């Protein structure tokens, strides 16, 4: 980039030296002559070719490094794709999740539609939950309901599991759905996966009446075929593993250095931390206690709805990754565990015992999953391996009944 402009008269080596101010009481003469209006394009033909040649010169000087960098980038892309296929596609995309279409069938749930009336001899389970159950980050056949169906099926008695999971659902909405939407599906039993978010929604929506999620809206979120240059570029960008890795990495880095933290907004307390009694801003965990009181009452009503329909109810809790192990690898979003005062599994388990509901503790199964149990980018949503581990814990409970 060396040019004739390098010989500029300024003392470039002294750019950080302070500018000595002149005395405020001596006269300083600054040029007053008017500046001539010239053709605005007069410099273009001189400057642009010069920049082009300078750029070319820089490229020529560093060609070796440019080639090496490109080879490294291609190798990195191939390695990332091979190591973690879900990096080819953002996890929280409205129409694709982890590179998989997020499509709902005409009956309003993710997966294959089922026959009504139910074929004779089929075991049909209703899987209630939120985005964890729906399968954010994984394909429709890699969710715990899909794995549970495989695990429960045998030649004598095929099994179907309806995946009623939908992001941000709360227990009151699930009760409503169970009574008004899923009751006609002739299920044999209900399995509910509670999450920390669900606990927080109980508190955040305490003043709102529960509403039935719009099933038409669900179907409208089915993948749309986009076309055109913009859609193509967008798709290309989301399908390249390196930017997705950078986005995930930068999120973790922001938590590591404290640019992001896990505080919830007390005015609208949404997030996993409320379920863990996260201490913040000098507050005690009373807001969490209030949330659990609401969860208890909602769970009692859900149990009543299941009883009214004659369906056995099984409940489990999807533990966040940071609560499974003290290792730093389980806590890449740097949750300060000293601030956590409540063990949600213990809370929900006690609640279920009091309400006469079967509770499944999935921690050991998830901890012992053969490969990483969570999607790379967060501590809430499971990888296929995590979904299968959860399904195995639920299967054991169902079979032991």
């Amino acid at each position, binding site marked *: 980039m060396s040019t004739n402009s390098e010989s500029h008269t300024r003392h470039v080596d002294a750019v950080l030296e302070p500018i000595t101010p002149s005395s405020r009481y001596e006269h300083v003469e600054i040029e007053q002559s008017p500046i001539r209006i010239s053709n605005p394009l007069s410099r273009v033909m001189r400057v642009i070719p010069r920049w082009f040649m300078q750029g070319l010169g820089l490229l020529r000087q560093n060609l070796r490094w440019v080639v090496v960098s490109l080879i490294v980038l291609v190798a990195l892309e191939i390695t990332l794709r091979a190591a973690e296929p879900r990096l080819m596609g953002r996890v929280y995309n409205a129409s694709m999740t982890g590179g998989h279409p997020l499509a709902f069938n005409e009956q309003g749930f993710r997966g294959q539609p089922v026959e009504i009336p139910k074929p004779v001899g089929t075991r049909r389970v209703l899987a209630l939950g939120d985005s964890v159950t729906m399968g954010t980050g994984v394909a429709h056949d890699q969710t715990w309901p899909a794995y549970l169906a495989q695990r429960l099926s045998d030649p004598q008695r095929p099994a179907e599991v309806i995946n009623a999971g939908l992001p941000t659902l709360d227990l009151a909405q699930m009760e409503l759905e169970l009574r008004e939407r899923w009751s006609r599906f002739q299920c044999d039993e209900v399995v509910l996966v509670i999450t920390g978010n669900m606990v927080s929604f109980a508190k955040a929506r305490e003043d709102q009446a529960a509403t039935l999620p719009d099933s038409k809206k669900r179907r409208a979120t089915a993948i749309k075929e986009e076309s055109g240059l913009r859609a193509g570029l967008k798709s290309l960008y989301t399908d390249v593993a390196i930017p997705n890795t950078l*986005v995930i990495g*930068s999120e973790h880095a922001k938590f590591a250095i404290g640019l992001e933290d896990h505080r919830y907004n007390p005015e609208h307390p949404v997030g996993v931390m409320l379920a863990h009694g996260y201490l913040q801003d*000098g507050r005690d965990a009373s807001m969490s206690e209030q949330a659990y009181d609401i969860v208890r009452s909602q769970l009692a009503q859900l149990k009543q709805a299941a009883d009214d329909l004659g369906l056995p109810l099984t409940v489990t809790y999807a533990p966040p990754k940071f609560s499974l192990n003290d290792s730093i690898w389980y806590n890449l979003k740097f949750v300060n565990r000293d601030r956590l005062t409540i063990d949600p599994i213990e809370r929900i388990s006690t609640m279920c015992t009091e309400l006469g509901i079967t509770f499944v503790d999935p921690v050991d199964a998830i901890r012992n999953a053969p490969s990483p149990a969570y999607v790379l980018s967060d501590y809430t949503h499971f990888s296929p391996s995590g979904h299968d581990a959860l399904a195995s814990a639920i299967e054991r409970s169902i079979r032991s009944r």
Partner: protein
Amino acid sequence: MLFNSTLYLIFLPLVAALYYVLPLWWRRVMLVAASYAFYMVWSVPFSSLLLFSTVIDYTAARVIDSSDSPVRQRLALLVSLSANLGVLAVFKYADFFTNSVYSLFGVRPWQELDLILPLGISFYTFQTMSYTIDVYRGHLSARKSLIDVALYVSFFPQLVAGPIIRADTLIPQLREENEENWQLIRAGIALIIWGMVKKVFIADAMAPIVNESYANAGAASGIALLSATYAFAVQIYCDFSGYTDIAIGSALVLGIRLPANFREPYLSCSIREFWRRWHISLSTWLRDYLYIPLGGSKRGPTHTQINLMITMLLGGLWHGAGWNWVVWGGLQGLMMIIERIIGLSESPPKQLLAKIVRWFITFHLVCLSWVFFRASDVEQAWEVITRIGTLAPGYAFEIWTPIALVALLLIVEIGRGRKRFVNTLQHSAPLALLLAILAFIVFALTFRGASSPEFIYFQF
């Protein structure tokens, strides 16, 4: 427009490219337009205040320069000062004044106006006032070109948070048809990266720690509050000096030099030394346009001390309309007066141990005064100081991070890290290019979805 935004990462290269491609007249017009656009991203209506200041000061300076009558000259100066200080008084101090009168006498001279504080108003009003005063003093001739004055008032790198620059420094540079100087551009890029790192990765990371403890000072332990005060010392320095580095770097990309605003202030061994190293453009402004006109140090020790106290109290009030700012300014003045009375030399001692002891005391006195700077009011500041002093029990999380960062900051400052970094990049084109690309990616990813707080000094 925020420096720490993806928009600015695109805005600056675009402006720089246009700047070097256009001939002088056009580039100056383009710079005025770009500067107003920069401001208008925050607010379109409030940019009219910039225009108002420009027109008032341009006209007042022309009247002063063209008139032989001292009365007319004084009147023109008065109009300029009244207009600038009037705007400042209405937008910044009206509510403070009426509330203070109410708390003292139980009546309000007027109802609270509850106005939005225009971005950077304290900076650009002081800057434009210095132009008119300089013309009045005969230091400068009034500019005939309105664009000269418009550019001087609105030059975007230093528009909203300084450095407060004098007309004789900036205007001649903006009249020069300079070619691109890659060494200066690389130095500018280096300073932008350095400033962004300080602002985004250090200051913003400290903000939650400070906010949590100060928002609930009564529940935080003394140790947590002490740690939060250290965190604030790091935050305010990295926030403001980070902003200044980006401002100076952005101007350097255009080949324009702005004055330094900080020179390793936390290495100071006295409060007077601290003020020669901290927010230099404000302290020299206060010296040239307030302290010296008041009489400076020429009328004996008592007058000097009174002048010093008046200057620092007004300096405190410049930062914010609140009694905690007044106390903060008063504390600075008081500490400097005490230093003068006990005969403490302004320059650091030669002996290492004495130097360390004086540095330690100075640093903690500065931190003590930061409590008033950060607290929402005097009562809260007092509560924080009491709880630190009595090591009050309470919650305490993340207390080691600020202490570690203070240590890191001091190591970097002692090692002249900023200068080394700028020098390295200035002389290596491939390294500068590589780091610029990497920094662009890293900052774009960091700004993505982040709710980064604005620069602290924007509120002043």
